[in-house]
């Protein structure tokens, strides 16, 4: 019955059956090829080893010189639950998530039916022959593949077949989309660099898939790759590795952490780098890494180290941020440096630990009880993860306050292509620290006195060899000398100076990135990973609706004056962000004169998947009534 249905397929050809060479050539002839502009989704089971296969696919497309991005949509699970990996090739350089899937590789029997049902008309489905997915869709191009049979033929060892099977789909897809086999082999050999045997076995699987597709699949879909040179000189890296590199080149010396998805790989990768590049010839380390008992201890260690003069950091995610609240207040009130990387995931509570969001902004901005405000840096791509990490260490010591680098799962855990990172030419800024000699010259020292008019006082480090160097740090009320006080004026003066210090921060934090032509009435504001979708959406709005928009990407809180100027120079501002409550818009409102806030509109995306351009475009078009 099912086969009967297949026979009536609108395509008229059962693509799974061997066909003659001539019909192969004819099958796709009617369609206009879609070159270097499509997405592939691989559905697998978590823990089945598909990561390597997907990585080889991604690197192969990159190796063909075509802009590409990959996103891992994985469950909070060790093994057994469904996972998806999407790869997008885009000749235009769009690397945001794309809503529609063009090619599905359905390797997970459990989700296969849903997976194929979710495809748009005309998409491609590659699947295990036995699953017979064709019964569910007659408007999708189906390429059944005998994966188990092909795998068994190249992999005699049964226990390895689950892993090796993934490379068979790499081979099939490679043939289907015209990947250069030499490029695929290079990517695979790189993946298994240190394991010759594994490389050979996996390569045999790729070839088996490739040859099967060449001999037995008649291509009917339009999706193909053609060589470009858009990735020449570019690198591929995930945001967490980039942040780790930034920390190392910022000269971090004390690193503390408590493992939490999706931030663990910041510190894990940092440990690898530090062991490699920060151990001296005598084997001694210029760094200390501590896996703490919880996030409270992690931030406590960071602040203790910062107080004693080290460049210290921790990396965490939402639940860790919540736990760090009390210490964040201490850091703010006692003026202690320390860098906290928040790789945001979906909250509240445990939320969706392996999905992405931009929903920690409000909690970080005011983290802790009492009047508290924190500096946030908001990297929008992997290069900025590197650069803003370095900047964060300079700012935290300059400002003597904790600095949060707020990234997200999408940026942190996915691979992105990027220009190579530039070596930081600016020397480390260790901030206002008095040595014993300077102390002697000055004659006096009051830890919390604003002597320079920028509201940033001078500090001394423990161990400074001068009888007047010591002071007492406390989270309780303190006067300019650091002595305990409950006097109304002392408290108020301190709080007002801290507010002034935040104004100083406003002048020191990274400025926004602005794209404007001076003619548009509509301005877009976004930050972090929403950037990719917004850039693409602006092109859609222009091409499809003739709508020009200006765009400002925020890179730090507090907002620099450019943000205010941008808002007041546009009639309508759309703030695009990945949370439910318009958190960035709320922060902007708090910063703006009441009359200006009416310009602000909100576009929000918060389903745990990275924001895509079409969602932005549709929401904006609806709001603008175009």
């Amino acid at each position, binding site marked *: 019955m099912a086969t009967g249905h297949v026979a009536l397929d609108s395509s008229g050809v059962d693509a799974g059956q061997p066909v003659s060479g001539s019909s192969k050539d004819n099958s796709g002839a009617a369609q206009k090829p879609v070159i270097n502009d499509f997405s592939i989704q691989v559905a697998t089971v978590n823990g089945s080893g598909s990561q390597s296969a997907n990585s080889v696919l991604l690197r192969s497309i990159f190796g063909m010189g075509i802009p590409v991005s990959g996103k891992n949509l994985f469950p909070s699970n060790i093994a057994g639950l469904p996972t998806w990996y999407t790869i997008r090739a885009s000749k235009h350089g769009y690397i945001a998530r794309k809503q529609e899937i063009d090619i599905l590789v359905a390797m997970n029997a459990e989700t296969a039916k849903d997976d194929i049902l979710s495809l748009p008309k005309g998409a491609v489905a590659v699947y295990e022959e036995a699953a017979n997915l064709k019964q569910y869709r007659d408007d999708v191009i189906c390429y059944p593949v005998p994966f188990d049979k092909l795998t068994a033929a190249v992999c005699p060892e049964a226990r390895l077949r689950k892993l090796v099977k993934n490379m068979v789909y790499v081979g099939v897809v490679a043939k289907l989309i015209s990947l250069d086999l030499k490029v695929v082999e290079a990517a695979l050999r790189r993946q298994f660099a240190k394991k010759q045997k594994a490389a050979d076995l996996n390569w045999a699987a790729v070839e088996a898939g490739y040859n099967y597709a060449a001999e037995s699949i008649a291509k009917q879909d339009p999706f193909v790759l053609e060589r470009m040179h858009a990735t020449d000189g570019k690198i591929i890296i995930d945001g967490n590795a980039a942040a780790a590199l930034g920390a190392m080149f910022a000269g971090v010396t*004390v690193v503390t952490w408590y493992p939490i998805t999706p931030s663990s790989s910041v510190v894990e990768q940092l440990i690898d780098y530090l062991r490699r590049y920060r151990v001296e010839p005598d084997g001694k380390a210029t760094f200390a890494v501590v896996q703490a008992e919880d996030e409270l201890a992690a931030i406590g260690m960071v602040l*203790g180290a910062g107080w004693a003069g080290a460049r210290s950091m921790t990396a965490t995610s939402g639940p860790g941020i919540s736990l760090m609240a009390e210490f964040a207040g201490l850091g703010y009130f006692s003026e202690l440096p320390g860098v906290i990387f928040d790789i945001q995931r979906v909250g509240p509570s445990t939320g969706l630990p392996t999905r992405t969001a931009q929903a920690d902004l409000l909690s970080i901005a005011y983290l802790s009880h009492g009047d508290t405000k924190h500096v946030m840096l908001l990297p929008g791509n992997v290069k900025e993860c590197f650069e803003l990490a370095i900047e964060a260490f300079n700012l935290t010591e300059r400002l003597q306050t904790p600095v949060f680098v707020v990234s997200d799962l999408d940026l942190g855990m996915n691979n992105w292509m990027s220009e190579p990172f530039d070596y930081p030419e600016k020397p480390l800024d260790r901030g206002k620290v008095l040595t014993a000699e300077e102390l002697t010259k000055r004659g006096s020292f009051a830890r919390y006195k604003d002597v320079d008019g920028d509201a940033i006082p001078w500090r001394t480090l423990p161990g400074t060899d001068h009888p007047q160097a010591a002071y007492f740090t406390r989270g309780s009320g303190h006067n300019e000398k650091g002595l305990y006080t409950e006097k109304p004026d002392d408290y108020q003066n301190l709080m007002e100076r801290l507010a002034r210090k935040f104004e100083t921060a406003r002048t020191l934090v990274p400025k926004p990135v602005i794209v404007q032509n001076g003619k548009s009435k509509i301005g877009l504001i976004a930050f972090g990973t929403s950037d990719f979708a917004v850039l693409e959406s602006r092109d859609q709005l222009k091409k499809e609706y003739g709508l020009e928009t200006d765009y400002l990407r925020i890179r730090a809180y507090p907002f620099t004056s450019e943000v205010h100027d941008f808002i007041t120079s546009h009639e309508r501002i759309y703030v695009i962000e990945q949370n439910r409550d318009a958190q960035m818009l709320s922060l902007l409102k708090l910063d703006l004169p009441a009359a200006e806030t009416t310009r602000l509109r909100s576009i929000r995306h918060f389903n745990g998947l990275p924001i895509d351009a079409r969602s932005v475009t549709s929401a904006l078009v609806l709001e603008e009534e175009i």
Partner: protein
Amino acid sequence: MATTTAPAPKVNRIGLPVVDYRGSKTTLCAGCGHNAISERIIDAFYEMGVQPERVMKLSGIGCSSKSPAYFLSRSHGFNSVHGRMPSVATGAILANQTMQAIGVSGDGDTASIGMGQFAHLMRRNLPLIYIIEDNGVYGLTKGQFSATADIGSKLKTGVINDLPAIDTCALAVQLGATFVGRSFSGDKKQLLAMLKAAIAHKGTVMLDVISPCVTFNDHEGSTKSYKYMQEHEEAISEVGFVPFFEDIAIDYDAGSTYDVTMHDGSHLRLRKLHEDYNPSDRVAAVKALMEAHHNGEVLTGVFYIDTEKPSFTGLLNLVDEPLATLPQERTRPSKQVLSEIMAKLT
């Protein structure tokens, strides 16, 4: 005419008078055990001749945690948040392992809110002198029981404690601290000797010092009062200490005394007062503590000492200089390193 000059003030081996080890005036109650402990800390650092600028003082929150302001005002101090001094101390010591660090906590700050950090501090054997000023009550919030209050002990209000006490010394021994003892704020001689030995030790020193709260826990029915301690203190050992800079040729009976050579060359001499006392045996230490508790005694002295186990900073194999002040040349890898890393990512 003959002139008289004031006699030069007495100074220690580095030429400093004791006044250079004092702090600001205490704001704790008159008679508070904590003040006596501060005095002994002053004496210990003075007598050991430690440069005050080479010391970091850390604390959590509570009456006890205020006390670092009352000693060593030439040392940097950090009064942090409730129960979290261990983490702050850990960070500070990693940033500058050349410093001597002393942390002051209380029974609430340690045995309740700070239990997690306390446990992990002991486990790491971080070089830190950790003092619990233990009075069995929360003073600043006006006299609630803490988790070290003995079962059956009574509050001023008549409320009886019906939960068992946490023995921080037994815990510290089990968790990995390498110098564990208990003393009493009123026992000047013992406490001073233990503090001096603590300064000579490289690793976590955990001293639980019973320190009566004169305002909320010094009455009949309290097991942390001056009177109760005078009646129930039972020393497991007599603590003698010979600093590295003094002649050690003082006789002792090797049969009844353990002589421990400390990291700096000082000698800790523990004269056995109990059968079966062996300060290098963790199991014996815990057993002695539990038995004393059962017998209604407050056991004091050094229960356990291990000078061999590596400290946390030793395990991390840090460079000799403080991490805090390493120059950029040693903390920022070269341009070539970045190029090398970038090349691998293409």
